[in-house]
């Protein structure tokens, strides 16, 4: 068939991605490549060319550990048959293409704005004019929540259509956090500026997005990261996973008003993020990960400190998990709330925790390993009920597994090298794709360089991009008062989606 298969973080010449006409492109990506559960769309985007748009579709094959790339050149305002009609996983990607380039889809089921970007094709569209789905009925009522969040976290608008206490439909409108990050990546020329941007994509996934960026950049520059760099990146990812998952459990306890769990998990999160502070001077791990070097080599003193932190953490963590997972009043709230079936998860193309909770094995650490994950032979943690309880259990077990991995990492710390060569500049006309399993799921960064090796297009995809629709589907037929706990158990990023 007409596609090229690459590995995670492999740089190829842009011209080697096969280009075909739209019907062949459609046939390939909708019917041929996405046949089984083990393949999913990791990214599908358009990059502007003079007078044209080049669509690139990246399908991840989890069995082979490959990413199949294909492309197609179309002109703006062309009316095309949509992928989404046959495969709903493309829904958001095509909405994004429609919004950014004005590509009209004849049979897209839900062609609405995504995030109201600054460089939108239709300059007149504004967030105030979002076309909400409406139902005319005497019995039903609408409840609008936001954009100001009750807990003042991040802005997003949720519009419920309810029959009494029961949710019939939820529409989630985002875009309030749009900062134009993708455009800034191209605009800002210094590496430091770009890394700082990567650190700001989503505040709770700093390590995830930064590792994705540095892996991609090093690959573009032909730099092979040594053991120490890979080691510290893996450690940062796992620490972040522990910290945010613990915070997530605390939030879930708060939402069912279980005070003990809320207080204890909240306290347990602090020493972990404080360890980042001792390591690199920032609790969110900003500044820790740099392309081609590290400013904060791991020292034996840090090792002793981390061991103590983990020992203290593990003891209390096991105790409170025992309490929470045997507390009938909490389980009554968790079980059978916000269910996503395996079939629905596959249809929507969810990633990360939101896929694994429904029995879909989708974990970059095992399917497309990077850094030191080769050494772990990671087995994804799979649950099958797809409810809040499954999501809580996945968090618990991910934390345990991360602790095991960190202990293993600490056994042998590769020596910091002083003889690293400096980064060269990126190769001309190249394409690189980088996948990272952040705590929330699969993070995907893609870059295209121009003829002089300058970055000409940068594409970011946060796992939330796939998963927001899953939240909207999960709460259907639930009680509206169960929405907060469902929402917290998904724990999706607003700014990661809005970019």
């Amino acid at each position, binding site marked *: 068939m007409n596609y090229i298969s690459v590995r995670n973080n492999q740089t190829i010449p842009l011209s080697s991605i096969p280009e075909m006409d739209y019907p062949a492109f459609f046939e390939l990506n909708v019917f041929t490549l996405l046949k089984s559960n083990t393949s999913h769309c990791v990214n599908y985007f358009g990059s502007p060319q003079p007078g044209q748009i080049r669509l690139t579709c990246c399908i991840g094959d989890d069995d082979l550990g490959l990413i199949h790339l294909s492309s197609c050149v179309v002109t703006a305002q062309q009316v095309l048959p949509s992928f989404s009609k046959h495969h709903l996983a493309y829904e958001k990607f095509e909405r994004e293409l429609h919004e950014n380039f004005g590509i009209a889809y004849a049979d897209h089921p839900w062609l609405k704005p995504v995030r109201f970007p600054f460089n939108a094709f239709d300059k007149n569209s504004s967030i105030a004019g979002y076309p909400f789905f409406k139902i005319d009925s005497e019995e039903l009522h609408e*409840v609008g929540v936001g954009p100001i969040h009750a807990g003042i976290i991040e802005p997003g608008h949720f519009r419920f259509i309810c029959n009494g206490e029961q949710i019939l439909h939820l529409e989630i409108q985002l875009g309030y956090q749009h900062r134009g990050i993708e455009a800034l990546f191209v605009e800002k020329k210094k590496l430091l500026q770009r890394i700082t941007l990567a650190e700001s994509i989503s505040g709770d996934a700093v390590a995830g997005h930064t590792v994705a960026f540095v892996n991609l950049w090093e690959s573009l520059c032909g730099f092979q990261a040594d053991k120490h760099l890979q080691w510290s990146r893996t450690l940062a990812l796992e620490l972040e996973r522990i910290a945010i998952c613990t915070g997530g459990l605390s939030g879930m306890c708060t939402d069912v008003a279980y*005070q*003990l769990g809320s207080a204890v998990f909240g306290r347990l999160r602090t020493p972990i993020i404080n360890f980042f502070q001792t390591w690199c001077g920032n609790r969110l791990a900003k500044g820790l990960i740099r392309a081609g070097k590290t400013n904060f080599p791991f020292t034996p003193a840090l090792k002793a400190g981390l061991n103590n932190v983990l020992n203290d953490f593990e003891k209390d963590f096991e105790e409170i998990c025992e309490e929470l997972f045997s507390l009938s009043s909490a389980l009554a709230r968790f079980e059978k709330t916000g269910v996503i079936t395996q079939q629905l998860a596959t249809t929507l193309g969810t990633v990360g925790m939101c896929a694994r909770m429904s029995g879909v094995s989708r974990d970059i650490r095992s399917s497309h390993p990077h850094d030191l994950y080769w050494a772990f032979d990671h087995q994804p943690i799979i649950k099958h009920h797809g409810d809040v309880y499954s999501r809580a259990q996945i968090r618990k077990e991910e934390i345990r597994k991360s602790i095991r991995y960190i202990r293993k990492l600490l056994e042998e710390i590769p020596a910091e090298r002083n003889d690293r060569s400096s980064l060269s500049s990126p190769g001309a006309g190249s394409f690189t794709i980088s996948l990272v399993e952040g705590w929330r799921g699969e993070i995907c960064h893609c870059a295209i360089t121009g003829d002089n090796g300058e970055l000409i297009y940068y594409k970011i995809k946060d796992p939330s991009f796939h998963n927001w629709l899953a939240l909207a589907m999960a709460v259907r037929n639930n009680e*509206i008062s169960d929405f*907060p706990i469902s929402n917290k158990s998904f724990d999706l990023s607003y700014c990661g989606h809005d970019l």
Partner: protein
Amino acid sequence: MLSFLLIVLASLFFTGIIIRTKSITSGRKGPGIFQPMKDVIRLFKKGAVYSKTTSIIFQVAPSIYFASIIMAICIIPFGQYKGFISFEGDFVFFAYVLGAGKFFSIISALDTGSSFEGMGASREALFSMFAEPAFFILMGSLALLTGHTSFHEIFASLHFGSYISYILGVLATFVFVMIALVENSRMPFDDPNTHLELTMVHEVMILDNSGFDLGMILYGSYLKFAMYGAIIANLFIGIAPLYLAIPIFICTQFLFAITIGLLESFTARFRMNHNAQYILALSSVSLLIFLGVLLMLGQLN
């Protein structure tokens, strides 16, 4: 007179004790026990802000709500001492004076036109409706047992003698505690600390109230707590002399507050649709009391 003063006294520290208990169980130091009262005093010094969509109902409702609670407290006796108001069948008056206050708070929530507040109002109305049979069956049974129909006479002539009467005392306490939790919108029926409008019952109804009005609503609920505490204390005071009765009263209030604090610390709250079932089940506990009373009176031979 005495009961009124004691209830006002208890209301000053009641909520503070709940909050302090919760702080201690979660490993925090927590605010002083008079902090909720200080907050109310701060609110009393402020003016209120009214939304343009609201009408006169919204402005008078907090006062009516507060007045209804004061009126209800006037009926509560203290052992052998009558309240300000006492007449045959006054417990029916008690229930419906509170009901009138609640009615006004519900229509004032609807008056704001907010979709959240309407939801909260409908939940509050539903839960109170389900709690009503439990209260009346319980009070009816006690009336049947003692042969009197006013709070004062019922409590003054309530004597614990046989085993059954102790069981009845325990059950009655349980029902009163639960009714107090429903009426005050506490855990496990409602979470007073939540920031999530979609899950609130009582808190969402008062989202639009501010300043003096909010102070009245908050202090009203403190009084309501102390009032239910006083009813429970009355079950045990009987005709005990004052030097025993007052310590029993204070101890009961303390225990009641600590129990609520512990309950709120170590359990999660109910799913909303389980609330209605659970509250309705209180009525069957009341029926059990009724059965016990029939047994004691020898009506079931």
